[in-house]
């Protein structure tokens, strides 16, 4: 029904007469937004919740959408903001948890891995390292690398979405990968 319409036309339709048109926007972008949230947050359940909240926030603010920006840019900005909010909540919760039970989490983490097969443990450890390194990147660098890897967007698409020059996207991606490499080298490998 709505497949022939552009994102911008769908938004206009959803605002004016048919709210269901927003469902087509969700269908088009749900995988990419989910991937963006996963790359930004590193956990499936957090990514799912953040993406859900992002779509709801977008729907509630449809009337505020400015036609001069692309819908994809608008959605990505909402999703990134939602991820940052989730990160802040996680940090606050983690601080509370560490205040209450200092050191207990580390012991549980090491014990659970020590019972895994060696190869599996090594892979899990490597994934954990990457996840931490990506998570520690500045937001502007992280969102570029996540868009590239998890949303599989081209440089041009990232440029359009973030409304940045193509050269800036490339240099940000280059910087992101360099910092990622340095952070992974600096991070000590945990004993399994």
């Amino acid at each position, binding site marked *: 029904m709505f497949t022939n319409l552009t994102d911008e036309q769908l938004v206009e339709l959803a605002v004016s007469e048919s*709210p*269901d048109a*927003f*469902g087509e926007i*969700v269908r088009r972008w*749900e*995988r990419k937004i*989910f*991937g963006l949230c*996963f*790359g930004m947050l590193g956990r*499936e359940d957090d990514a*799912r919740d953040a*993406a*859900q*909240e992002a*779509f*709801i926030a977008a*729907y*509630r603010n449809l009337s505020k959408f400015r036609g001069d920006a692309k819908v994809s840019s608008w959605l990505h900005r909402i999703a990134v903001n939602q991820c940052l909010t989730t990160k802040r909540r996680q940090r606050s919760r983690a601080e509370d948890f560490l205040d209450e039970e200092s050191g207990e989490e580390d012991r549980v983490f090491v014990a659970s891995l020590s019972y895994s097969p060696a190869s599996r443990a090594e*892979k899990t450890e*490597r*994934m954990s*390292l*990457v*996840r931490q*390194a*990506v998570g520690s990147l500045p937001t502007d660098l992280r969102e570029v*690398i996540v868009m*590239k*890897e*998890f949303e599989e967007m*081209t*440089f041009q698409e990232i440029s359009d979405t973030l409304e940045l020059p193509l*050269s800036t996207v*490339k*240099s940000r*991606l*280059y910087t992101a*990968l*360099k910092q*990622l*490499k340095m952070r*992974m080298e600096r991070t000590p490998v945990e004993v399994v």
Partner: protein
Amino acid sequence: MLQNKNNLDCGFTDEIVSYIYDELTSQERGNFESHLTSCTGCTDEFAAISNARFSVFEWQKEEFSNLSTPEFVIPYKSSGETSGKAASGFWAGLRDLWAVSNWPLTAAAGIVVMIGLGFMAMTVLDRGGDEIAANITVETPEIAVTQAGEPLMRNAVEIQPETQVPESRTDFRAESSPGTSLSNEPQSTKTISVRKQKPNRQFTAGTQPPQNESSARQQTAKAPVLNTYDELDDRSLRLADLFDDEIGAKR
């Protein structure tokens, strides 16, 4: 011949990421590969960046690519109402309910609450007034003893005029046994109890104390004879009355 061993000012840095992500044209790709064979700086940089990129790629393949896309539920609104499938959770549902712009219903509920509060306030004020009035009448209570022997508090308005006091006092003195009715007695509770506890009064000369209850009742049927009633006899309120026996003995 290798060149640019320690720095990357050869102008191919942008091509490194483009090459890694396969976003070069065939001609650009050929040029960059030719450059790599002769530039160890770009080669080292390419290896490092490629390794970092592979880590992210591996993480994405390992932990994300197998995930199915979750079903996102949007709380669609149509003409000011939310649909039934709107909630993404309890709190989201609660927020949706709160977000409904149904101001006439909210206003009506507010009015009902205000009326209820006003009614409660009036009730409390009325009770407060009654309590104040009760406190005032407590100061001048009128107590009657019913046939069952229970004291009754009466309103101060019902206090009889002063002229009836002697009659009531006479009645009281005559009917001093417990269980008999005492009425129109504007005295305090303490006074009554003293009288009840000391039914044998002192009478002045010329008057005869009641020999028993039956004779006392006969006297109550008559009007009191004021000239036979000596105010001095009314010692029940005085401390000396408590020591009647002692005084009589001295006499």
